[in-house]
């Protein structure tokens, strides 16, 4: 092949790369009315949530709907929900990276940011639900003259470590992955502020061979580090329940069941976010039905695991012969919280059965709808596990029925607003797709050309 051909091919390649840069960086342009309107809504809802929380701190936790024996309720439901959402991010970015599953490239940045923000949201709830939040630091193992340490036997302390570790690793992982892309943004930044910002954040990235080599190693190792966390964090969260003696909680299946559920809900949330994003920024060329189909299959797989876990729970309750277990599960299916349980079973097991059809899997509309249902169903899964089990415990005298108050609803809505606020800021400040990795996926014409040159 002649030099000319090579040059031509190289130019074409550069053209494509430029287009990738342009398309992705277009998301960073000055926000439009739609974005501003969404931000306004989000900030309003967040404001209401903050007011509710301040009111709750001032007056007491009683302004929430807690009705003993239901001592944990919507806040812990929200906590587990958001931790669950956080999970698929790392799954997609780290595990699928190690498995070299190429479909992840288009969506992994979104899912990773989702992870970080979801952990940031989840981390609020253990504080919100404390009776005396102003003493939250008692949970932190800090050295003190009284030699008072947290109780390392308590799953809540494990939780503290699991969540903080997860937050650290996943934000470092997100940041490392962002470095080359920030450099691209730096190079194309129009305003001084942005240039400054991206210069600092890109850590002097030049795209040299050495930098790329180090970068790839680091990314691989971080992926390796993050991988076990995908399994461990939600296992630890599940032990908040499984370690207790509450019938309906005390079950060995909880760790795998929660991990599968977390991935299930996380993938659903990725779909919920990607579908509108793709439309809003015209990223149809980068995220297409192929990606959607893969995500849908992941959803289907995890839905089946969750379905299986539900069945096993009932089986175990029956097979254990324990009156208490049986009573709880009978009550779950047919008792006062049956409405919530059946929302959960329909959304998590029945509706995802539609994913067996390829046409559904590749339909943006239907996938969006299903993902919303799955999100709802997974929220109710935690609601049912936590509240229904507590409401129907050992002591029949203390059986009761809990309903949330406006404070809990406001804070829950506020948590969504908090999450979306960060997400909206993110898509306007940092590339929400992995530019460098997208380029890697393009047919490596340049490389081939080089080989041909050598051959020649």
């Amino acid at each position, binding site marked *: 092949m002649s030099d000319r051909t090579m040059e031509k091919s190289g130019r074409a390649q550069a053209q494509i790369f430029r287009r990738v840069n342009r398309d992705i960086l277009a998301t960073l342009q000055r926000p439009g009315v739609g974005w501003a309107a969404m931000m306004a809504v989000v900030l309003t809802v967040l404001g209401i949530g903050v007011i509710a929380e301040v009111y709750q701190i001032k007056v007491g936790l009683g302004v929430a*709907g807690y009705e003993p*024996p239901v001592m944990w309720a919507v806040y812990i439901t929200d906590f587990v929900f958001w931790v669950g959402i956080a999970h698929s991010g790392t799954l997609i970015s780290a595990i699928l990276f190690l498995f070299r599953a190429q479909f992840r490239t288009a969506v992994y940045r979104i899912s990773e940011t989702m992870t970080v923000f979801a952990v940031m949201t989840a981390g609020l709830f253990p504080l919100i639900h404390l009776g005396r939040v102003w003493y939250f630091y008692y949970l932190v193992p800090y050295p003190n003259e009284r030699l008072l340490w947290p109780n390392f036997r308590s799953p809540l302390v494990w939780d503290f470590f699991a969540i903080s570790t997860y937050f650290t690793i996943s934000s470092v992982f997100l940041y490392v992955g962002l470095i080359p892309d920030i450099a691209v943004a730096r190079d194309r930044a129009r305003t001084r502020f942005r240039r400054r910002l991206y210069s600092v954040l890109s850590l002097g990235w030049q795209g040299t061979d050495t930098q790329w080599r180090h970068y790839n190693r680091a990314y691989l190792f971080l992926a390796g580090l993050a991988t076990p966390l995908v399994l461990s964090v939600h296992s630890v969260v599940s032990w908040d329940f499984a370690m207790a003696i509450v019938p309906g909680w005390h079950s060995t299946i909880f760790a795998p069941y929660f991990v599968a559920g977390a991935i299930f809900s996380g993938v659903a949330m990725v779909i919920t976010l990607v579908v509108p994003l793709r439309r809003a920024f015209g990223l149809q060329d980068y995220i297409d039905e192929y990606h959607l189909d893969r995500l849908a299959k992941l959803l289907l797989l995890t839905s089946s695991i969750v379905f299986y876990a539900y069945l096993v729970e009932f089986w175990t309750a029956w097979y254990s012969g324990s009156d208490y277990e049986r009573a709880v599960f009978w009550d779950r299916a047919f008792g006062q919280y049956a409405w919530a349980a059946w929302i959960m079973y329909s959304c998590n097991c029945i509706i995802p059965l539609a994913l067996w059809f390829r046409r559904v899997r590749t339909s943006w509309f239907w996938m969006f709808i299903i993902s919303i249902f799955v999100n709802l169903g997974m929220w109710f899964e935690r609601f049912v596990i936590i509240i229904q089990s507590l409401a129907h415990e050992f002591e029949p005298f203390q059986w009761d029925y809990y309903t949330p108050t406006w404070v809990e609803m406001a804070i829950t809505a506020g948590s969504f607003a908090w999450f979306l606020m960060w997400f909206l800021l993110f898509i306007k400040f940092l590339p929400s797709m992995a530019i460098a990795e997208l380029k890697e996926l393009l047919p490596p014409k340049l490389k081939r050309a080089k080989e041909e040159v050598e051959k020649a």
Partner: protein
Amino acid sequence: MERRDFLKLIGITGAGAATACDAKVGPQSLIPYMVPPEDITPGIPTWYASTCRECPAGCGTHVKTREGRVIKLEGNPDSPVNRGKLCARGQAAHQNLYDPDRLKGPKRLQDGDYVDAPWEEAAAAIAAEIGRLRTQSGGEPGAVVLLTGLQTGTRERLYDEWAQALGARRVVYEPFAYEALLEANRRVFGEAALPAYDIEGAEFVISFGAEFLETWISPVRYAGQWARMHAFRGDEAVEKGIFVAVEPRLSMTASNADEWVSVKPGTEYLVALAMANVLGAGGEASEWTPQRAGEATGVDPATIERLARLFADKRSVALPGGISTSHPKATAAAVAVNLLNRAGGAFGDTVTLSAPVTGPVAGSYRAIVDLVSEMQTGTIQALLIADANPVYSLPPALGFAEALRQVRLRVSFSSVFDETSAWCHWLLPDHTPLESWGDWVPQQDVIGIQQPAMRPVFNTRATPDVLLDVWRAIGGGEEGAAAPEEATWYDYLRAAWSDRAPDERAWAAVLKAGGIWEAAAVTPSYLQPTDAATAGRAGAGAAATAEAGGGEAADFSPAEFEGPSGEGTFALVVYPQLALYDGRTANRPWLQELPDPATTVAWQTWVELHPETADELGLVNGDVVSVDSGHGSVEAPVIRYYGARRDTVAMPLGRGHDRMGRFAAGRGVNPIALLPPTADADSGGFAWQGVRVQLTKTGAKVEPLTFQGSDSDHGRDLAEAIPMAEALRLASGGAEEHVEEHVVGEDIPLTVERVARDSDSESPYRWGMAISVDACIGCNACVAACSAENNLPFVGPERVARSRFMNWIRIERYFEEKPGGGVETHHLPMLCQHCGAAPCEPVCPVYATYHNPDGLNVQVYNRCVGTRYCSNNCPYKVRYFNWFQYEWPEPLNWGLNPDVTAREKGVMEKCTYCVQRINAAKIVVKDQGPDAVIPEGMFQTACQQTCPTDAIVFGNLKDPASRVARLAGGPLAYSALEHLNTRPANFYLKHVTDRGGAPTAEPAAQTTGAH
């Protein structure tokens, strides 16, 4: 309490003590301890013996004060009435003392408003007014009336003397006066007295509507007697007695019966009559064969015969009716029970007049009816009302309030602004009993003394003092005696006691003892049935009434219930609620929040309906129905209750106040509004029963304020029962037939020895309890005692609606279907189990709850951050969370126990086994050397101390000789939810059922579909 408040308090009480009860020094003057008062040591409680005046029973009390403030009441162990025990009302008595809405000083009505009036002015003005009225009415006696509640002893004497001297008349009005019992006793054995019923000595007790474990005459005494007769704890192989209740409603008393015979309202005494007939009473009883009585009452004739045989075979006593059977035939009913007692040989044996209960004065309702008609005609010029609230407790149809308006001068001595005070010109608040001198004669041979335990909280004055002032101001007059020489009420009282306590030493001894009990001094006077009764005629009444001059013969036809009939109508049963009695205790928030023993409802008035009836009417808990009797109507929420009959609805008395302060006003409704002013013709007593009501669904719905989740324990090992025969066999050394091997984690069966090892090996203690489900009657006295001892807040109805009550101990009431039909009621006290392997401990992230060296599961309030994980993991659900900063409106906070922390919002709390008492005992024992150990019985927990039936035994499980260790190691002991291997320190003793004869099927009682 804040440090500053504490210091202030010390100062104030110092001032009080230094000025020796002179009421003139206001609490503003702070005088430091230049010379410390001798009897106050900060930190050490001072106790005063006194008498409880929450109801006419007159239990002896020990009032605990700290730094000059009453903080707790306990029963006086020496008092023969209550033997150291108190009921819930007694335990909450100081909340009346500290009621923030009490009248804070004397007031006068001026231009439609109450204005402050000094005491001197008040006495002078009233004296002048009375003097004027007397001259106006031409000195006609009776123009001035002193209307009081039941009084005994010196105060009664003073009232009578005052009335006589001033040409006034004294009218006694007590809502629960038991006139029918007195009248029946007069008819049958010629003495209008309440005899002593020897429940303790009986083997078979049958009650015809007497709520003797709740409110009837002297409930604490009878509860103790009942427990000694009935409770089987497995420590001795002696068969215990049988108790049967014949009632139209499953009251708390009936729920403790081995058998509840459900009868149509107004017919329960026909069962007594038929039983008497079976026993050969003859006379009019002979007309009532079991068959005929069965038809009239709805009771199986075989049951009547079986009960009659039991009555004859055993040493028996039959108790005549209480308020819930006071219908227009109440006297006939009581006569019938007397006939049964006579036919069964109980007279002179278990029913004696050896020490008659002083009890209510006969004819009080009749007197008030006369008074009302006199008021209406304008004969009454002045009415002074003390210790009575007739506007509230009389049926509106009688027109007391309207008649009151005809009276020219109306004076109220009530210490709270109640419904009657609201009609009065003068409000001259009396001291509460805890601030007053006085005495009380609960029975002929017992005189309890009442001494002030602290200086008056407000500017109040003893009513006798006011009356003495008035008397002095008026002077003797022509026919009246001159005012007594004694300057004050105290002097008058002291003078009245001069023969019993001639010198100060003797007086001090009386004050220390809390009264004098002269059991030996009274010669037993055995009941002598009158001629008519001896002649075997049930119409003893007839003869007696004829003798008394007129009236009709006691006829034994069933009491007719008037009012609407047909579809959706029911006979109405109103009954005194255990905590609120006749409504006088409604201003005590602990009592408002005390769950009703039967329905577990607090803060509201409810309508009890049988679940099946409710289903037919489409009513669920909380549906508001309108109850209409034709005489009035009220609206209240429905509570489905298995102890209601299909043809009956029941409503509790005591709520529905318009006044009486923030805790009483507007809570619930007053079912008295439904009642016609009907009296029992024979005795003149008020007929609390006797109307039918129409129920209409209003469509409104309120949150039912029940504490109870499910009505059944669903066969879980919570409330366990064992048949009497089996219990006896085990107690006499028999082996368990099928030894349930509770082989748990460590392959060690759960025994008292195992549980005792759950404290440090160096610690001599492992505190524990043995709680007898058989003895527990569900009276909730422990709940009130715990509230007072441990500063438990009341949370109010809005929070009870969300089950956020804070009672560290609660009585779980479970129904269980009997194999032969009917229901068994179990009362299960549930409190922290202080588990050896406590599930709450490992889950707390900050070690706020941990196991202390004595094996207690303790809660560190300062460390708690409020994750509430401990509560989730507690299988017994005995941890309570401070959802808010609970308030103690001034001066209710004066009653807080300074030994116990008042908890902040956001922390968890629970039963501590009264750790402050344990530590107080430890401090004392420490002085006796390093190895000294707290001896058994050195202290008691608050719940154990007050339990009228001794159902709770607390002690050291490590001491094998202790009572608790012996009971816990006994054959009836079990652990709640034992299979969880939490190793609870509370051992329960099984409920002993199936005593004597097969129970009959009760079609009205089903527990299916509980919850």
